[in-house]
């Protein structure tokens, strides 16, 4: 008689997977009886132990060791979601593209999303910037990753016009989940949404409101006043622990100066390599600010060509923290200050706003105290907190100091590592132009700069490693797909070049590198003799043609200019550009093909995380509830 065929046999069901799981589950049942979870052991074994991979819960625990990864102080309780009622909001005009509001004096409007704002009548402040009809059109970015700025009418009645925009920044959401679900649209498909209460937001994101309270406003007015008195000769720094609102307040200082002083511009010294305001992580820079700052860092990268935020000088640390080489960090800052002083001779004085890192204890404090002398600070804003080691000297060294209470902790929907990713992506995807523009083409489809490293006609003279030295036989493996900084020395000052460049050696693959001395550690190049140009991603190394394929936001003319100098690449402790490897896998057009490639093991450095499945689920259910679920 004919045998019965099962559908499985005819169609080739994946029975291998099922039975493997089933067998494993049986084995696990025994172990779980003993309270042991091998799935947990395996999960732990595969996690990197490098301080970047802790779960969100960990950051609220006690950790006051003065390490740069410390979060907010102990036991900070998050406030209940803010319910902010805006009274008598008068919507005067409401069409497909724009909305006009009429606000009485001191009334506020809170808007999420991105929009262009114009004042038709009266005056209002946003982010500390005074808007008037003469201010023209200003672009505001208010993603849900951070507190939303409010528009406060300073004169009544004030007519505010909001216009929907389609910025190219939004298109980055095609390339990574970190950029998703942070913008908004209202019922008319405009790019912004007028919020009246925090709970009105449909997608349940934790939103909070940024408003300039009276204490802050008072300090801003005083600082602007002193700038006018001293004719621009003012250097102000804001100090405080991590996440205490330093960068937000610095933005407001810039905006207050832009609005209330005749020259309307200031210089911004970005000293926090982990969370810079105007550039990618890993460097310190000086930026000329000529327009108000109306959004978070990733919405306004600075460049040499930008009209609003012009990059003047930058020095790379090749690391997101200065903890491994504080001397080099101080040397970089010193070099920038030399440039600053040359710039502001005589009548051209411009106020300097300094953005410090939130590391106010331990080594961070010691380094900052040294820097205060280098910077010549005149005004210091101290945010409330427990850091006597730094607060004392800071008060003494400056002419005036102000005290600012600490704002309530705001939950951010992005971790610091995710924010650094957003900043890097914003940097690499920005196109050099006078107004900010971004391209949503994945990195893999951008045209790389092919530069030779051969001895006969080098475009790149050497690869330098800051920080931990690398055995030359592995340099190629480490460099491939990683981020480097492009620096150069001026060839015309020949003697300096000769002194500066010790002998360049070649790795087995032919890559030129500067070897570390027997100490195992190379002293970084003097920032006074080198110029940092930009970052680059090493897309490929071609040993046959002896060329490197680099992706960089530099324009073609800037690259051409580089070739007249002696160019080197600096590698160090930049964050691994995981986002770049994954762009294709998130972009709609290529994600299916990409996933197939990963499953077949054809995509370098990427693999699919195996389904932990039931085992993982069971283990989590068994655990006691998370701290956040227990009230009181």
């Amino acid at each position, binding site marked *: *008689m*004919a045998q019965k*065929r099962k559908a499985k046999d*005819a*169609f*080739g069901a*994946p029975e291998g*997977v099922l039975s*493997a799981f089933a067998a494993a589950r049986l084995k696990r049942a025994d*172990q779980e009886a003993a*309270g*042991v*979870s091998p799935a*947990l*052991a*395996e*999960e*732990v*074994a*595969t*996690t*990197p*132990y*490098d301080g970047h*991979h802790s*779960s969100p*819960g*960990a950051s609220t*625990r006690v950790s006051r060791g003065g390490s740069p990864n410390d979060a907010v102080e102990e036991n900070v309780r998050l406030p209940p979601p803010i319910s902010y009622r805006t009274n008598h909001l008068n919507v005067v005009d409401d069409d497909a593209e724009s909305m006009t509001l009429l606000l009485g004096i001191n009334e506020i409007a809170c808007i999420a999303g991105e929009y262009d704002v114009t004042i038709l009548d009266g005056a209002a402040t946003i982010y500390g910037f005074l808007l008037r009809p003469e201010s023209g059109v200003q672009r505001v970015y208010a993603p849900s990753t951070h507190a939303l700025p409010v528009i406060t009418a300073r004169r009544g009645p004030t007519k505010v016009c909001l216009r929907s925009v389609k910025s190219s920044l939004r298109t980055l959401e095609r390339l990574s989940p970190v950029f998703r679900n942070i913008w908004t649209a209202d019922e008319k498909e405009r790019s912004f949404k007028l919020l009246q209460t925090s709970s009105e937001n449909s997608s349940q994101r934790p939103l909070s409101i940024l408003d300039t309270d009276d204490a802050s406003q008072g300090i801003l007015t005083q600082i602007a006043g002193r700038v006018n008195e001293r004719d621009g000769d003012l250097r102000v720094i804001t100090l405080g622990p991590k996440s205490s609102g330093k960068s937000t307040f610095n933005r407001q200082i810039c905006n207050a100066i832009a609005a209330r002083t005749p020259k309307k511009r200031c210089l911004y010294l970005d000293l926090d390599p982990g969370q810079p305001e105007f550039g990618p992580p890993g460097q310190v820079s000086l930026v000329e600010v000529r327009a108000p700052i109306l959004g978070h860092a990733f919405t306004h990268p600075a460049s040499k060509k930008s009209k609003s935020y012009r990059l003047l000088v930058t020095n790379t640390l090749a690391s997101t923290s200065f903890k491994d080489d504080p001397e080099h960090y101080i040397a970089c800052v010193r070099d920038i200050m030399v440039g600053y002083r040359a710039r502001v001779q005589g009548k051209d004085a411009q106020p300097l706003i300094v953005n410090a890192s939130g590391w106010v204890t331990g080594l961070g404090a010691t380094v900052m105290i040294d820097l205060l002398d280098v910077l010549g600070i005149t005004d210091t804003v101290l945010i409330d907190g427990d850091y006597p080691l730094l607060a004392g000297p800071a008060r003494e060294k400056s002419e005036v100091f102000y005290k600012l209470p600490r704002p309530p902790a705001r939950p951010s929907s992005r971790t610091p590592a995710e924010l650094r990713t957003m900043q890097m992506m914003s940097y690499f995807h920005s196109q050099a132009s006078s107004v900010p523009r971004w391209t949503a083409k994945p990195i893999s489809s951008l045209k790389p700069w092919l530069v030779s490293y051969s001895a006969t006609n080098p475009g790149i003279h050497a690869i330098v490693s800051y920080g*931990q030295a*690398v*055995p030359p*036989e*592995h340099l190629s*493996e*480490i460099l491939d797909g990683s981020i480097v900084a492009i620096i150069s020395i001026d060839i015309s000052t020949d003697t300096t070049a000769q002194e500066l460049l010790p002998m360049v050696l070649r790795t087995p693959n032919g890559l030129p590198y500067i070897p570390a001395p027997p100490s195992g550690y190379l002293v970084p190049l003097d920032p006074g003799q080198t110029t940092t140009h930009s970052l680059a991603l090493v897309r490929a190394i071609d040993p046959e043609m002896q060329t490197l394929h680099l992706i960089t936001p530099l324009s073609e003319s800037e690259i051409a200019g580089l070739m007249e100098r002696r160019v080197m690449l600096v590698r160090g*402790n930049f*964050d*691994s550009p*995981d986002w770049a490897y*994954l762009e294709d*896998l998130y972009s709609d057009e290529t994600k299916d093909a990409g996933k*197939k490639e*990963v*499953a*077949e*093991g054809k995509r*370098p*450095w*990427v*693999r*699919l*995380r*195996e*389904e932990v499945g039931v085992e993982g689920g069971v283990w989590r259910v068994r*655990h006691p*509830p*998370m*701290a956040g679920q*227990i009230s009181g």
Partner: protein
Amino acid sequence: MAKYTITPWRHHSDLLTVRSQLYSPDPILRQTAVSRTMAWKLRGNLPHAVESTALLVDAFLHHALPSNSPFSIRAVYSAAFTRFVTGFCDIGRNRERALEPSSMLEIARQIGMPAEFVALRHEATHEDLPSVQRLVAACEQALEWLWDVYWSKVDAVAVVVAKQAEAVDVAHVTVEARRVFRDFRGARRTALKKQGTHSQEARLVVTEAAANLRSLCSNRAEATETAIAVLVADELLYPSERELGAPLGGAFMIWDDLLIDITDKSPSSLRVLTKTMFNRMISPAITRTTSDIGSDALFIWLAHIASSEAVLPSARALVVSLGHGVAEEQP
């Protein structure tokens, strides 16, 4: 939503190479692997188990050099061991997210790490450095434990992932192939009726369908088998209202060109097609009420294939031999 992880090694085979080198008896290979792992560490995303193994192996290599002082030998063993234990417990505690963070011993118990490891780490940190023989024994035990917990599972991961990729594909291929065949049948019928057998339009329908199938299966044997199985199982090769014994001239006109195209590009598919037809012919599924009619039709198809020597050389021999094979399988 697929979840991806980034590894510092380019290909999975690199990890397997390092595994065999770290656990090999040859010190030169071990040194190479340690050096490479430390380079991976600089890239970031290095799993703690890999780092721990390399540090422990490095401690053994350090011990083997007579020029190193006894203190430094104990110190290197202690440092490697301490980092290994502390790392596992810290990461385990982070995963926990409980109200009261558990002690290291408790975490160790949950992940199956021997309690003596935690005790030795405590001693090395807070008391005298343990003696070298204790450290050697503990580090050897640690390497074995790491093998059990991580390295032995590294192949399995690759296999599971590959299987998952295939598993997903089969369902997808079935659905897509069904769609392609049905669309083809409809379009071809219309073209043949309107323009005739050798018209360009009719030919175009064939080319398009063949291209679709090719991109769907992309040269993978299992995918091709699945598609052919759909063709046969869905009874697409003969009209649904057919009478027993009726000729299949129309069906041949519809399907011949496509089948020739497929088997031409992929020789094994002819074998698969024939075998599938045979199997279906002789073992109808329970639900089918028209089993005889279907089997009858398939029989005629097989005869048709066997007699197509002109376009499909060796088809006859294939059909005959497969037929014999199938007959032999029957009880």
